[in-house]
């Protein structure tokens, strides 16, 4: 096993510990726990057995496994950015709505 694989496994164990800890403290739902643990276990398996990603890459028609990882990472990053942008816009709109309500309720009328 290479040093890189050892570092990845230690990091994944740390992430899994944090996820379980948060679940025990009822900070995240069981669905998020399964999703989060599933994702990192998959990353761990790919790190230890790179042949998995090579097999998947060949299966979907991409030559190299690393290319598939880059494509997936880009797709997930852009999708997350899009989701966050939509959420941020909604929050901004909600904040302006609350600020407006406060301003209208606390308006000082002309004497």
């Amino acid at each position: 096993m290479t040093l890189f694989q050892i570092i990845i496994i230690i990091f994944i164990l740390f992430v899994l510990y944090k996820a379980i800890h948060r679940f025990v403290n009822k900070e995240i739902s069981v669905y998020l726990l399964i999703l989060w643990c599933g994702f990192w276990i998959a990353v761990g398996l790919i790190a230890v057995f790179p042949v998995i990603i090579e097999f998947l890459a060949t299966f979907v028609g991409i030559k190299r496994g690393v290319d598939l990882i880059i494509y997936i990472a880009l797709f997930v990053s852009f999708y997350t950015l899009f989701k966050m942008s939509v959420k941020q816009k909604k929050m901004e709109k909600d904040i302006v709505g609350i600020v407006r309500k406060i301003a209208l309720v606390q308006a000082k009328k002309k004497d």
Partner: protein
Amino acid sequence: MLVSVVVPTYNEGMRLQSTLNLLLPTGYEVIVVDDGSKDNVAEIVKGYPIHFLSHPVNCGQGAALKTGTEYARQLGSDVVAHFDADGQHRVEDLVSLVNYLASNDVEIVLGSRFLNNETNFPTQKRIILNIAKIFSNKIIGLSFTDPQCGLRVFKTSILDQLDWQKRDFLHCTEILSLIIQNELRYQELPIVVNYHLDGKKEVRPKLSMGLKILLNKFFD
């Protein structure tokens, strides 16, 4: 006819006082909306016979105008005017826009700095405003002579159709789009804007604004 003038302010300090001194003799209801200024606007306007609203945090000029306009509607105003706090607009232009609205079959009257040659623009501002005009006319499909002008007067009866949502400078082009979409009757009138005020730190228009207008057109 009850006319309310909405004056959004953000860190205008004592300049707001001179604007109020000019506005009050008109007899219009004056609604000052402090958009989260760092200076104590409540103290600055203390003693003035005006309506005062305050945003606890800075939300942008479009949002402040909307708050003031909503308040004007609650007051039962027939006409609402938007007027800058920094003293750039002239009260005589405001009065002429209000009078035009009252005596003609239009629903909104827009000020335009490009319908006469009396406004002495800083060079950079003139260039950028002309670029903004090209953006609005060719890309967004509007045909107004001054899409970024902040002086406008309209009847409260059209407020449901003039429901702008943009909280920053984009509210100007959004209002124009709403005018066209809802087929509102409008008129542009020449106004003069004073860009050479004592101690005024000029807010320079940026090319990024044009980019924002463009992105807003395609992605919003």
